[in-house]
């Protein structure tokens, strides 16, 4: 009966649903959807500024895309990928490790609130200011070189900012520092969602903490791991502030740290709208695929296990219940 009245009631209120969600969708259409459509549109046109003269827009079909793939895009795409990997690999390893330790009931680590507060902090700071700080700290006569020199570890200052891997390493380090706290907290939430009886059963069977991590924790939090990885990938594709400020928009020696968005930014500033459009569309397509993956990982009804895994889980739970008696 309750169901019925609820349904009846809400039908007459349907128009309010539309009214309440209208602002969101109107603003989204005006400031996202229409701009996206015109971005795609301009990507098929020759449209740029040469001196004071504006050339175009003249329809050129796929010419912008052909130029893009034949010239700069592969380089900037692989730059972006490399910079992302340098930050992501240590990030996921450290985050998994910390999340496993923080949730380990036998370890009972103290001061967790303090550590969590500290590791999350870099996530909130202004990326451009952080990059400026790193630029000052790692410059040839900056404090980092001064400390290394005074400790006698190096004889001449390391030129972090003038070498390819120095630059890339710093960008990766900053991305690692900014994001591993966030990832740790998300993975912790995932691990705490794992049925604790599984660990109890494993402990009774004499599993080592290592085995528990690899055989129980890791397989069960796989959906979250996928989610973390995909969202981080999308974040990586957006990488801009850090390399832009660190290298003053130049992308380090021979543009080896120029990312996709820095490339887009250069076209937008020089008002080459055709090419900017083409870069945007490539980015959009890559992100669209990744967004669909995120969508499915969020809307999946269950915990993302396969049927066989769920059966195993059930059996393990049964065994645990028996073992507990």
């Amino acid at each position, binding site marked *: 009966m309750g169901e019925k009245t609820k349904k009846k009631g809400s039908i007459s209120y*349907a128009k309010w649903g539309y009214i309440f969600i209208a602002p969101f969708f109107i603003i989204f259409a005006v400031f996202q959807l229409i701009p996206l459509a015109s971005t795609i549109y301009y990507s098929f046109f020759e449209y740029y500024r040469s001196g004071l003269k504006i050339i175009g827009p003249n329809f050129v079909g796929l010419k912008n895309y052909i130029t893009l793939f034949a010239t700069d895009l592969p380089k900037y795409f692989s730059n972006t990928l490399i910079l992302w990997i340098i930050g992501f690999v240590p990030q996921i390893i450290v985050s998994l490790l910390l999340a496993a330790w923080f949730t380990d009931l036998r370890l009972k680590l103290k001061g967790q609130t303090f550590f969590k507060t500290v590791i999350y902090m870099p996530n909130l700071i202004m990326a451009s200011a952080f990059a400026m700080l790193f630029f000052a700290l790692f410059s040839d006569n900056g404090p980092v070189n001064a400390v290394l020199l005074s400790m006698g570890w190096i004889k001449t200052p390391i030129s972090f900012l003038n070498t390819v891997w120095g630059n890339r390493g710093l960008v990766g380090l900053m991305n690692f520092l900014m994001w591993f706290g966030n990832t740790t907290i998300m993975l912790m939430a995932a691990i705490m969602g794992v049925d604790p009886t599984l660990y109890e059963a494993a402990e009774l069977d004499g599993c080592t903490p290592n085995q528990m991590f690899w055989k129980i924790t890791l397989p069960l939090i796989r959906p979250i791991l996928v989610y973390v990885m995909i969202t981080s990938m999308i974040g990586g594709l957006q990488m801009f502030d850090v390399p832009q400020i660190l290298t003053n928009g130049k992308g380090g020696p021979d543009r080896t740290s120029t990312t996709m968005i820095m490339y887009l930014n250069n076209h937008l500033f020089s008002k080459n709208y055709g090419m900017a459009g083409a870069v*945007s569309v490539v980015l959009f397509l890559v992100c*669209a695929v990744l967004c669909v993956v995120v969508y499915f990982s969020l809307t999946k009804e269950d915990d993302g296990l396969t049927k066989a895994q769920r059966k195993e889980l059930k059996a393990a739970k049964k065994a645990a219940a028996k073992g507990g008696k």
Partner: protein
Amino acid sequence: MAHTPKNQSEKAILTARRAWCYLVLVLISFLCLFFFYVLIINSTRTHFEIQKGFSLMPGKSIITNFRNVLTDANIPVVSGIRNSLLVSACSAALSVYFSALTAYGIYAYNFKFKKAAFALILLIMTMPTQVSALGFLQLISKMGLKNSFIPLIVPSIAAPTVFFFMKQYLDASLPMEIVEAARIDGAGEFYTFNKIVLPIMKPALAVQAIFSFVASWNNYFIPALVLDTADKKTLPILIAQLRSADFLKFDMGKVYMMVAIAILPVIVVYLLLSKFIVRGVALGGVKG
């Protein structure tokens, strides 16, 4: 009893593991804090002291550096702080209110396109706004909104990640009975939302307001393309300007102080509310 009492060697292993964990944690915390420490120290030292070498002790020039930054004619810091505050506060307010409104619209009512609307928001949630930046810039120049704060503030009404958080919060903590009771008492729909639902959502609103504020405060890409004149520039743009200025002529004390001005307010607020915020990250799952 199934549990066997732990013997000596097991205890020793556990102690060793614990010691190892603490060591790693301390090292990582040191890595996180070291840069801020150097930042704070160096913003209190003069250019000459900084050039001479690194020191762990603060200098005495904090007020001089602060005054030098504020009075620098090339980098309008005071108006930068004001602009950043204005844009961030307005964005946070709009984004939180309208995301809650949208989430409530989808949570509380049944209508034909409800599922489609929800699916669409989830689909676009992780789409970077940069992909439509070109069209966005063209649109706002046609609207005559170039070099204005409006294109930085108004679009935050459509904030999918904030919406998602609010929706999850409503799912977990708003029984429909409350809404129905309000209706029986003759409350209008907007009245119910503003006076009954919003107060219930206070914790979610607070956490998301902080996140939105910080995201807008730190935003560099779009503001740098929209704002042209010096009096409109926000802090991240001024930082970029500082970076592209001729570095050797610069007073390093001033540079560190400027970075500190951009970073430290957020850090202070974070440290005051960290419990709140860290819990919010775990709850939300998503962050733009």
